């Protein structure tokens, strides 16, 4: 933990793991799908399922999926605001198996496209995104994050990395479908990737899908 994590962050109470962490997972999904989804389903596991509602986890999740920041005082009114925005949402409780006790599965549907993201709140507001659709991963969102679905052919990642042009802090690449020759690449960077670079990457012949989830500016 850094000094600033010890003396902060600014958040809406009561619990950094049940409120802040939950909000950040939902906000990651909000950024991943490019805005508030039309329909969203939150599946709560473990301690989230047991004590989550008492900690306002439901409100935190809705606030996050609507794009609110962690210190937004409207979080306590998130249920009402979600209804006003006609967000179609539901909560359910399920045993997600051998995962961290504070885990949520978010199923978001935006413009007819379904995205499924699983994340855990691992303490102190820190999160781990551990599955995106069918792909297992481990993202902390402490960096600017680029998630790519790319062609599994020689030179693909090399060309893309050349276009990133900022310092890469972590890199992850995994083949997910040998038959269709598809791989998933996750690039975490220290600095923000510029819009020009992002456009170049998206237009690359190797890139099938691209999602850029910039770290929130207020979190250093």
């Amino acid at each position, binding site marked *: *933990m*850094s*000094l*600033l994590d*010890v*003396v*902060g*962050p*600014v*958040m*809406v*109470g*009561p*619990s*950094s793991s049940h*409120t*802040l962490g939950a909000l950040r997972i939902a906000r990651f999904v909000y950024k991943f799908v490019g805005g508030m989804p039309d329909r969203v389903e939150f599946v709560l596991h473990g301690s989230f399922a*047991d*004590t989550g*509602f*008492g*900690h*306002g986890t439901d*409100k935190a999740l809705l606030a996050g999926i609507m794009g609110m920041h962690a*210190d937004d*005082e409207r*979080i*306590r009114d998130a249920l009402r605001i979600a209804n006003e925005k006609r967000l179609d949402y539901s909560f359910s409780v399920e045993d997600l198996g051998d995962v961290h006790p504070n885990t949520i599965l978010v199923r978001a549907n935006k413009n007819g496209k379904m995205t499924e993201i699983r994340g855990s709140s691992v*303490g*102190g*507001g820190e999160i781990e995104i551990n599955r995106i659709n069918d792909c297992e991963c481990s993202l902390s969102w402490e960096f600017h994050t680029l998630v790519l679905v790319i062609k599994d052919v020689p030179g693909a990642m090399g060309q893309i990395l050349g276009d990133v042009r900022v310092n890469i802090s972590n890199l992850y690449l995994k083949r997910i479908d040998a038959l269709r020759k598809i791989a998933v690449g996750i690039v975490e960077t220290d600095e923000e990737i510029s819009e020009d670079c992002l456009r170049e990457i998206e237009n690359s012949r190797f890139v099938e899908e691209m999602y850029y989830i910039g770290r929130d500016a207020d979190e*250093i």
Partner: protein
Amino acid sequence: MKFKEILSAGVPLPEEILRREMAESGVPVELLRREMQKLMEVMLEEAEKQYGKRQKTLAGFTGDNGSKMASHDAVMLSEFSHMATVVALSLAESNAAMGRVVACPTGGACGVVPGVMYALKKLKGAQYDELLNSFIVAGGIGWCIEKNATIAGAEGGCQAEMGTAAAMASALLTYYFTESGEKAANAAAIALKSMLGLVCDPVGGYVEVPCVKRNGIAVNIAISAAEMALAGIESVIPFDEVVEAMHRVGKSLPESLRETGLGGLAATPTARKIVKDLKLRQHSAEKQ
């Protein structure tokens, strides 16, 4: 990283703390100072806003303690301690009502450090820069505890959360009045020692009972420890060793006493009853 190493660096304590953070995270000192400043401002703003305010908390087990304390003329506490107590209770209740807080070091213990800062500002005319420097020293104390032990109730019990908050607040006060790192470390050690062994036993798992009132008590432990340090009283056991002891005690606490809501006060008949009543109320509210 031990606190005594920071003390022996030979530069002013706040500078050395920020320099070490920069070495670790790569974030420049000036930016770190600004971020600390922002956190301090939010604390003071919220202290002002929530002072003595009634809150509608999530479980409804608390909510009017800050208000009662604010409208009560203190019989025994000094004006300083009374004000710090009101802030500590009020912010802890605001936290339980999903209000905006600074998790210093955690949401559950968020009232302690702002309690002493607000009283310094209001009653001692504390100037901005001195207050910020003292806050950075408090941060250094909390940081050392996090590095060498834990600040999470789920890992080390309440001593890790509220104990850390009290240690930070006492160091803040002591550094503010003396600018002495040694004295601040003594105050922090005395405060942390006084909370050693405290278990984390929130009723129903909610951050309300006993967390809110413990904020009000921890702030007074911090003030007393700082007053002792100002008087020249030293901790026989040095701060870094107290932190180690706290860590060992935390490790030997059974899981039922580490934020599970299963042991301690949470297991009393009254606690079980009010949690059961709450579940019934929630259930009937869902049905409607």
